[in-house]
């Protein structure tokens, strides 16, 4: 089953069919879709189903034939029924008309015979009355009979009813007729209704002649036409048909609903009656017209003319009933057509199966062969072109088997090659990804010319050059020019050794930056030709880290020294301070009691002087050891510096030194130990003045950089070489002669600033003076 097929069926199933009839049509639809969508073996190539095509063709042909046949059949039946109805109605109407006509003519004939046989013309009144009584007894349809003589108009009358009830109508009628009726002419009057009995009556009149044919009067009869009413009742026209009689004026004379007759209804509104009233009797053509009938419904209508009297019988049949057989015929035609269509479907499916089954087997076999099954054959019993095609196919398969014996090996080799190619493609892809996305710069260069032939993205970043610019450059140009010779030799040696070499080196970027790198160079073979592959690993970070590590180590060492010195100094100062105080006290006391010429005066003053120096030294040691324990306060740096300078300005003048101030105005107050910071300034200024034996200039700047206050103390002294700078903050390091310095001044500055969370740096060069920069945190 192709994938598309169940999807379509499921989609159909969602259409919500509940009734069995709908289910039936759904089933048909399902089969139909299966036929249409039969793409079992070629779902993606848009092939239709031959079975479906044949089925459609058969069905279409059957449907067309059935439709045409049924259409003609229904139309023919309709026309035949129309003719049949016209004939039938005409016969019924004519039969009824004849019945009425014959009754009336028979009555006229009876009257004529009675005249001729009874000798009415020559008889007397009594004889005439007796004759009329006989006639009345002979025929029950005569209500009254009368003879009126000519020219004297004597009247003889008999009645079926009492003389009293019959009244004078007959006499009046007889007189009127005798006056206007031409001699020798028969007469049929208009229909009228008896008021007492509600019966339809008509006057008949025949001339009374003697044996010589002379006109002697009229024999008038009042004829009861109730038979005509009964006749209209008894006429059977289908189940719901009806008949009625009208005269030339359209008056209704007889109808089953006698109340309408009694009203003497005029029916000229009925088209058939109008046709009779206005039409030419001789040219009337019988037709089953569909008109609005006497009851106001659509009927098939026809009429027959009586001629004598001038009446017509109209017959009507409801349209539905008239064409009921046509309708039933139509229904059964539809049923037959549906049944035929169903049989046509079955036959079509069967035939299409017969035709397409071997073709489908052929198709399946070819697809089996396509999938590699060369043993697929088909068996078709048909002895026709398809059977011939099947035989040819089997022969073709046999030949194909012979020519494709090594196909499996070939397929295996192809598969192997495909696998290798796939591996190659994968390897190449992996290499390409590795090469292009490596974090280290990779360069390939020609081994003979040293020209770069390929580089990766990391190389472009490292050398700050696009790949196009790198390719074609000599690898030596990647290094600082002064090192070209070295690297030339380096690469040559590497090439000669034909091995891999790792070494640290420096490269120069497009912007001139020198970057330390670790080079891993090797000679590799590319498509048989040796090339140099260099991998450049940026080691700037490591170098910087190494440098930082060294600094940290120095600082650590310095800190350790300072701590040790501080601890030592504290202990020493504590132990020395007291005895030194005693020595100094006694020395000064003795000196005060001696005259300068006393031989002990000089030694004692020396003891006093040295003791004072020792005291100062001890004081410094104590300051050094207590630097981190002093309380801080918020202070204005500029003001603090000014107070400090005021203390040393006198000394500076003595040493021909100028102190210049360059303060920033917007310094924020900082938390400091004011005395300690002042001591730092004093120490730096003293050192500066010591460095300017011939005088000079000390410049003190202050400024705020972000969250730091900078104090810069610069002099124009001798400056310091690098090797001295490295030790100036170490305790007891001094370049001064013995007795001139303790070596604690700058180390004390360092300790104080460090305890304040700041840093102190020095920049100095021989003969260019020194610059000390102090950075204190604002908070």
């Amino acid at each position, binding site marked *: 089953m192709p994938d598309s097929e169940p999807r379509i069926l499921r989609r159909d199933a969602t259409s919500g069919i509940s009734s069995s009839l709908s289910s039936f049509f759904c089933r048909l639809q399902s089969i139909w879709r299966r036929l249409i969508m039969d793409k079992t*073996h070629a779902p993606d190539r848009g092939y239709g189903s031959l079975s479906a095509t044949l089925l459609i063709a058969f069905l279409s042909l059957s449907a067309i034939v059935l439709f045409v046949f049924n259409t003609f059949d229904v139309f023919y039946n309709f026309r035949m029924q129309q003719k049949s109805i016209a004939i039938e109605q005409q016969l019924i109407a004519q039969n009824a008309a004849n019945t009425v006509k014959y009754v009336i003519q028979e009555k006229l004939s009876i009257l004529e015979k009675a005249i001729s046989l009874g000798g009415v013309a020559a008889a007397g009144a009594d004889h005439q009355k007796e004759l009329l009584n006989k006639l009345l*007894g002979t025929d029950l349809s005569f209500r009254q009979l009368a003879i009126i003589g000519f020219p004297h108009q004597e009247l003889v009358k008999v009645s079926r009813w009492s003389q009293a009830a019959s009244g004078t109508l007959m006499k009046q009628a007889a007189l009127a007729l005798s006056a206007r009726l031409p001699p020798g002419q028969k007469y049929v009057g208009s229909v009228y209704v008896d008021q*007492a009995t*509600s019966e339809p009556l008509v006057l008949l009149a025949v001339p009374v002649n003697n044996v010589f044919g002379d006109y002697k009067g009229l024999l008038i009869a009042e004829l009861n036409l109730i038979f005509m009413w009964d006749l209209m*009742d008894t006429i059977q026209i289908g189940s719901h048909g009806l008949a009625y009689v009208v005269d030339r004026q359209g008056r209704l004379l007889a109808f089953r609903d006698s*109340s309408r007759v009694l009203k003497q209804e005029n029916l000229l509104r009925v088209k058939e009656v109008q046709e009779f009233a206005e039409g030419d009797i001789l040219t009337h053509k019988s037709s089953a017209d569909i008109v609005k009938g006497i009851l106001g419904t659509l009927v098939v209508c026809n009429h027959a003319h009586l001629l004598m009297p001038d009446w017509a019988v109209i017959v009507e049949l409801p349209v539905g009933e008239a064409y009921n057989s046509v309708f039933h015929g139509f*229904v059964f035609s539809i049923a037959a057509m549906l049944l035929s269509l*169903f049989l046509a479907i079955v036959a079509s*499916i069967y035939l299409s199966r017969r035709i397409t089954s071997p073709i489908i087997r052929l198709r399946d076999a070819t697809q089996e062969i396509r999938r590699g099954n060369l043993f697929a054959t088909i068996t078709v019993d048909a002895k026709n072109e398809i059977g011939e095609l099947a035989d040819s196919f089997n022969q073709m398969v046999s030949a194909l088997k012979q020519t494709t014996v090594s196909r499996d090996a070939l397929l295996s080799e192809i598969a192997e090659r495909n696998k290798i190619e796939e591996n190659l493609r994968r390897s190449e892809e992996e290499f390409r990804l590795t090469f292009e996305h490596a974090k280290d710069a990779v360069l390939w260069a020609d081994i003979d010319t040293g020209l770069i032939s390929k580089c990766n993205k990391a190389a472009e970043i490292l050398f700050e050059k696009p790949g196009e610019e790198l390719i074609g450059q000599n690898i030596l140009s990647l290094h600082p020019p002064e090192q070209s010779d070295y690297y030339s030799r380096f690469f040559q040696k590497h090439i000669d050794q034909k091995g891999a070499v790792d070494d640290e080196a420096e490269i120069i970027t497009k912007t001139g930056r020198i970057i330390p790198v670790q080079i891993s160079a090797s000679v590799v073979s590319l498509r048989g030709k040796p090339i140099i592959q260099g991998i450049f690993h940026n080691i700037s970070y490591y170098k910087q880290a190494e440098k930082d590590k060294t600094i940290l180590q120095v600082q650590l060492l310095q800190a350790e020294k300072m701590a040790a010195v501080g601890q030592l100094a504290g202990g020493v100062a504590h132990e020395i301070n007291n005895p030194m105080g005693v020595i100094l006290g006694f020395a000064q006391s003795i000196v005060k009691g001696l005259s300068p010429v006393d031989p002990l005066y000089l030694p004692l003053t020396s003891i006093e002087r040295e003791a004072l120096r020792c005291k100062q030294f001890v004081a410094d040691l104590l300051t050094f050891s207590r630097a981190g324990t002093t309380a801080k306060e918020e202070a204005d740096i500029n003001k603090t510096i000014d107070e400090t300078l005021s203390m040393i300005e006198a000394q500076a003048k003595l040493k021909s030194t100028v102190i210049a101030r360059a303060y920033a105005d917007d310094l924020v107050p900082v938390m400091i130990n004011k005395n300690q910071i002042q001591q730092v300034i004093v120490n730096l200024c003293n050192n500066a003045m010591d460095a300017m034996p011939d005088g000079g200039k000390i410049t003190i700047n202050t400024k705020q950089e972000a969250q730091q206050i900078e104090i810069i103390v610069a002099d124009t002294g001798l400056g310091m070489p690098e090797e001295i700078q490295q030790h100036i903050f170490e305790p007891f390091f001094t370049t001064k002669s013995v007795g001139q310095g303790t070596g604690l001044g700058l180390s004390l500055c360092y300790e104080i600033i460090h305890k304040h969370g700041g840093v102190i740096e020095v920049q100095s060069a021989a003969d260019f003076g020194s610059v000390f920069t102090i950075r204190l945190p604002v908070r």
Partner: protein
Amino acid sequence: MHNMFSHKYRFGRQPVFTLSMLAFVFSWAGCALKTPEIFHVGILSGLNFTAKVGDGFKTKMTVLGYVEGRNIIYDHQTTDFDITMYKMILNRFVHEQVDLIFVFPTEATQEAKAAVQGSRIPVVFAIANIEDTGLVESVRAPGNNITGVRYPGPDIALQRFEILRELAPRVKRILIPYQRGYPIVSSQLDALRPVAAAAGITLVEAPAADKEELAGLLAARTAAKNIGVDAILALAEPLFVTSDAFVVMAAFADRHHIPIAGALMMAEGHESLFGLHVNDFNVGQQAASQAVKILKGIPAGSIPIVSADPYFQLNYRAVIKLGLHVSEGLLSRANEVIR
């Protein structure tokens, strides 16, 4: 492999489809066919004397296409002038919702009209006098869902009078016996009186409740020196057509050698000269025509009343016996001559 010829899609279920489709088609076609309607008609024959009316009705109905058992069912009930039974039978008809009630004569028709009040059951009557009974509104449009064949009582009374005079021209005094209080008598007398007066004839009216009273009246005349009448003429009423009463009247006529006529009666050696009545069978047929119109859908109240034709029966034997002369014309007009 799935395709149209896969085993799953063979036609195992096709017979079901076929039957379904055929059932659908034929049920559709069958919708056009109608079940024939069967009418239920109740007949009340209220007087044995007129029993043939029912036969004529059924016969004509058959002729007109209403065949008993096929498309019409009759519930034919017979009783002899029993008003209580009339009511009971008619109420049952109404309860059973019959399609039509055919009833005769006048008294039964009056009860029928009352019984169907409030229902839609039409009534067809026969041999009923419409004069002085209030059965219908008019001859042309009777109304009240009722129609039928009227009994032409006044005209028949006049014709009886005329025939009697033709047979016995010397008669000057005519005894008119009738049941006292019978409703249709007055209209007949009203018709007769002016005609008799114009002809110089004296009508001797003799109302009686029963034969005993009638016998008493006649005995009194017999006892008198002059019986005071020259003939006895029957009206359309029940007393004359009751055998016992007729015998009393006929015996009186025979004893005094006077004609007795109007209704044809023969009992205990006595017989009347002629009878002018209606043909019950024919009347039944006339009523059938009316009934068919109703069954075809025409409202009964709009169907005009028709009149029954008179039926003349001449007892030639009795006429001769009484020494009277019969004209050839009268003989010719007789529908039936008894010799």
